[in-house]
């Protein structure tokens, strides 16, 4: 074994050229990292600012100039109504399903295949929304005609199912269902994660008391995951509010403000309206669409911020 000759003394203060280069490397690299982070801050502020600049003319223009001739607020209101209606259906359908799917994967499915099943659910999120739209028009819509007819016949006294029912199935009901399928994987991803983190000792404690599996879930898993469920639902809502192409393709739009979910006359949504009108618009019409996009941005921002803070609190609680 050779001996370690004390190497040429490296001064601890490192004045050599290479040491200066190294310290510069550190600075450049941390500067780049910091710069990227700041760029994101700037970009997002930019989103709001540029939309505001471009949308401003629509907010200040003479009401008669706005399409519809009744001012911006009256232009957006029916769209906002359609947006909220379609998202509400999506949430009502998608969230219970998502929770059930998460429970199935975490607590009911055989452990060996649970991960694979989760991957299949995640694939739902990978399908492009345009494909959901095509599928909604070609498959789900026609398939829903029978069910919608039945709803009209038996529940027609409710405003939702007053009819007359369409023969294409391209209704608010169908669009909402498709949105529900689209938000399911997003909600399920969060709830699955939180359900699987339910402390073992709680689960075992409940089972040791003689609880059935459902009683165990009701006693431990659901209370433990409650705020995560709320947060995930809002995340799903945010996604449904902004979903564009599926709605634009599926919905047969008349612009009416109605709760009737199964007729041919449906309100549009903010996002779908932009996609449908934008390519053929010019001048003030573009500004109006951008301003409506700004409104959508603001709505989803609030919903997502609330969702994030609820989820963050849930995660802190879980730790």
């Amino acid at each position, binding site marked *: 074994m050779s001996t370690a000759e004390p190497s040429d003394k490296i001064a601890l203060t490192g004045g050599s050229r290479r040491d200066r280069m190294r310290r510069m490397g550190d600075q450049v690299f941390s500067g780049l*990292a910091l710069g990227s*982070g700041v760029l994101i801050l700037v970009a997002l502020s930019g989103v709001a600012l540029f939309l505001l600049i471009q949308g401003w003319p629509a907010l200040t223009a003479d009401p008669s100039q706005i399409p519809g001739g009744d001012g911006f607020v009256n232009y957006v209101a029916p769209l906002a109504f359609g947006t909220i209606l379609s998202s509400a259906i999506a949430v009502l359908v998608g969230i219970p399903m998502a929770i059930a799917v998460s429970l199935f994967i975490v607590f009911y499915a055989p452990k060996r295949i649970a991960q694979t099943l989760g991957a299949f659910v995640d694939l739902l999120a990978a399908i492009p929304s345009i494909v959901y739209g095509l599928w909604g028009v070609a498959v789900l819509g026609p398939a829903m005609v029978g069910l919608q007819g039945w709803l009209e016949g038996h529940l027609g006294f409710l405003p939702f199912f007053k009819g007359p029912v369409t023969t294409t199935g391209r209704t608010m009901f169908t669009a909402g269902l498709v949105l529900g399928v689209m938000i399911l994987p997003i909600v399920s991803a969060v709830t699955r994660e939180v359900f699987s983190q339910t402390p073992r000792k709680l689960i075992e404690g409940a089972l040791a008391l003689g609880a059935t599996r459902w009683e165990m879930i009701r006693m431990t898993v659901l209370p433990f995951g409650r705020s995560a469920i709320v947060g995930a639902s809002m995340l799903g809502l*945010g996604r449904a509010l902004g979903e564009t192409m599926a709605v634009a393709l599926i919905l047969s739009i008349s612009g009416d403000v109605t709760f009737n979910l199964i007729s041919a006359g449906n309100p549009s949504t903010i996002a779908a309206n932009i996609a449908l009108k934008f390519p053929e618009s010019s001048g003030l019409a573009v500004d109006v669409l951008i301003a409506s996009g700004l409104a959508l941005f603001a709505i989803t921002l609030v919903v997502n911020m609330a969702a994030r803070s609820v989820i963050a609190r849930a995660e802190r609680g879980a730790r």
Partner: protein
Amino acid sequence: MSTAQPPVPVLPGTTGSELTAGKLPQRAVPAVYGVAALAAVGLALAGMNRALAIVLAAAVAGVFLVGWAWLVEGRRRAIDRLVTISVTSAFFAALAPLVSLVETVAVKGSARFDAEFFTSSMRNVVGEGGGAYHAILGTLIITGLATLMSVPIGVLTAIYLVEYGRGRLKTAITFFVDLMTGIPSIVAGLFAFAVFAIFFGPGIRMGIMGAVALSILMIPIVVRSTEEMLKIVPNSLREASYALGVSKWRTIVKVVLPTALAGMITGIVVAIARVIGETAPLLVTVGAITSVNGDPFNGRMSNLPVFSYDSYRSPGVPPEPYLQRAWAAALALIIIVLALNLVARLVYRRYGTHLR
């Protein structure tokens, strides 16, 4: 002997002294569902809607099982069975759209999923023939540019958050990245449009605008996944490197990033898969044309999702060739997206082992 009674009434169902009291036969569940499956097949053969037959048979079987369990096993067990059946059904119901959707697209898309579709554009094509070569090229260019912009920014931001970030700025960036994940894709498109319109006028349409819009959607996904991967690199590896007198940036570049690489690539591929099918942001930024345009800085550019949308939404006369091309484009998109997801999974399984 009232003193021998427990002070609190015990749970119903636990009063029996035997442990086996009241239970459905072991094979009850598979047997009932076996019968239900046969019934469903029968109904379908008899001309009933396939989906309706399955739903009906499953529902009847479920109600029957729960009712039976109620009589034999008591209320608690029956409710437990009810939930089990509901949850399981919900899972299969959730996967039904996936199956139906893939099947539909495969069937309808295969009609025009031919060589011509991939080799020719729509230039001077009316009616039959033509293809999506120009759209595929556009999609590759736009998504490629978006990836080139998003990956460095996203990865560096994740590095900042995990390795350097402290205090308020870190909190602020984390928060903004969270918010970015929630930006509706159409708003991202409007943003890119608004930025370019300010400098080039409102009629502007370019491939790069679409790439910017997609980046806004892609960056937060890349940041999130990279952040997760960097966080699970054990701290002991960083310490080992520092203890060798290695500087921080070399430690990050040569030790931390290689260790996290497989997971990062997986995340990036998933992010690409997410944005490659985005339609709305491209609809408002790059528009559509019928001929090949390979220059993202000059004029409109076709792309697969918008091609599919346009062909379906405003077909020519007769509509069939247009609709077929729309479905073929959708099939191409789904294949690309599923392939990317598969690649991501394989990369992680093959190379991501040293973190588990």
